[in-house]
């Protein structure tokens, strides 16, 4: 992979940018996510989380971390559909 390889295609985050975050001392996946913005776009990290976790494990020598906290909904849902649902209970 070259440094310009696109690691998170939804948010245009390159391998270079993730390496820069690691070099800046961000050695946990939640910090790397917030420093680069990876995993926050359309696919919500379905493609890039694994690559970022592997890079982090390589650089730190630690076992791979749990993925970033998943954010609902699991799949993009139209507001009109959500507006028609019940769900007034907590949960």
């Amino acid at each position, binding site marked *: 992979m070259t440094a310009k390889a696109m690691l998170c295609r939804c948010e245009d985050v390159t391998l270079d940018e993730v390496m820069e975050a690691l070099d800046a001392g961000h050695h*946990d996946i*939640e*910090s790397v996510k*917030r*420093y680069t*913005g990876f995993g*926050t*776009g*359309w696919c*919500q990290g379905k493609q890039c989380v694994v690559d970022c976790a592997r890079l982090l494990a390589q650089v730190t020598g630690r076992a791979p*971390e*749990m993925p970033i*906290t*998943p*954010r*609902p*909904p699991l799949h*993009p*849902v*139209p*507001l*009109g*559909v*959500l*507006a028609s*649902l*019940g*769900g*007034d*209970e*907590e*949960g």
Partner: protein
Amino acid sequence: MPRVVVIGAGILGLATAYNLAKRGVKDVLVVDRAYLCGGASGRNGGGVRAQFSSETNIRLMRESIEICRDFATEMKINVWFRQGGYLFLTRTAARARDLEENVALQNRCGLPTRMLDPSELHRIVPELSSEGVRAASFNPGDGVVFPWPFIWGYARAAKDLGVTVRPFTEVVGFETRGGRVTGVRLRPTRLSPLDATDEVLPAGDPYTEACDDVVLCAGAWSPKIAALLGLALPNKPHRHEICSTEPLKPWLGPLVADLSDGLYFSQSMRGEIVGGVAVEPVPEGINQQSSRRFLTTYARALVRAIPTMAGVRVLRQWAGCYDLTPDGSPIVGRVAEPSNLTLACGFMGHGFMMAPVMGRLLAEHVATGQTSPLFARWGLDRFARGALEHENMIIG
């Protein structure tokens, strides 16, 4: 050289540390229980506005917006700042009167805020349903930022000036002598695996960092930390949820906030519609979990306000904690004992937008020991004296 320990590496702690270092107080340690952007500073909607109902907040926020405008140049980082204005609207007569009074006060403070008639409302946001809208106000100078790079900008600039920023470090106690804090007991942490609650686990032995001054700006975590000193704070965490949609072409100028149901939404520079709505009741204490109730309530309110949003998809939702005080104003300044503790918490969900200016004022307060009329009014002892403040422009 005095040694300052700042508790909380949210935007307020980092802005204070940066401004202390700029004043020459360089022996500053900022600690945080988890990762940077892990608390409200990384979970808010990025709104920056001067439309408030108290002169204090209006004047402070005017200055904060000025700092936001220069932030990218000073800090060499893009914070996606966009001044599209804030459009407040209401569907009740009582709130309409509040809006009119607030606009008059804002004008006296030099803001160009104005009441909008229906045709102007339609011109600014053509997609907005004006059904039932009783009144609306607009200040074109208000805006939105992307919160995360703001944090990284302050953190990097503070570090460049010699400040130490230490995430994954929680406060477990204090050492005191003669009515002063002499040391802060700290313990390394790590994120708890296998759950999504943002809890941290101990990851090492406690140790002490000596200090001459302590600044407590841990947001919703502040009362818990103050309690370690036997200090009872009246503020309470209050969960707020928020979500963002798929990115859209730019179409929405201002942040729109409906004071009658707590709905607010704006379009970020990344194209997403980011917003939230008031949901009551919320779970007690610190809770950063998402709920389906929020998502359906928000969707109903947003589709009512902007019917064309019905086909737009929600990508992600998350939650953070407001830090609420009984009178809607922050708790800021030194306390009687320990005499070298400065509080800066209870910012009512406005802490992010106020931090650029409050960081400057706090640094001055800590570095010089001088107090100001503002800090006297916002001091913790106002609750004992019964000298409460008032602010009615609180969203959500």
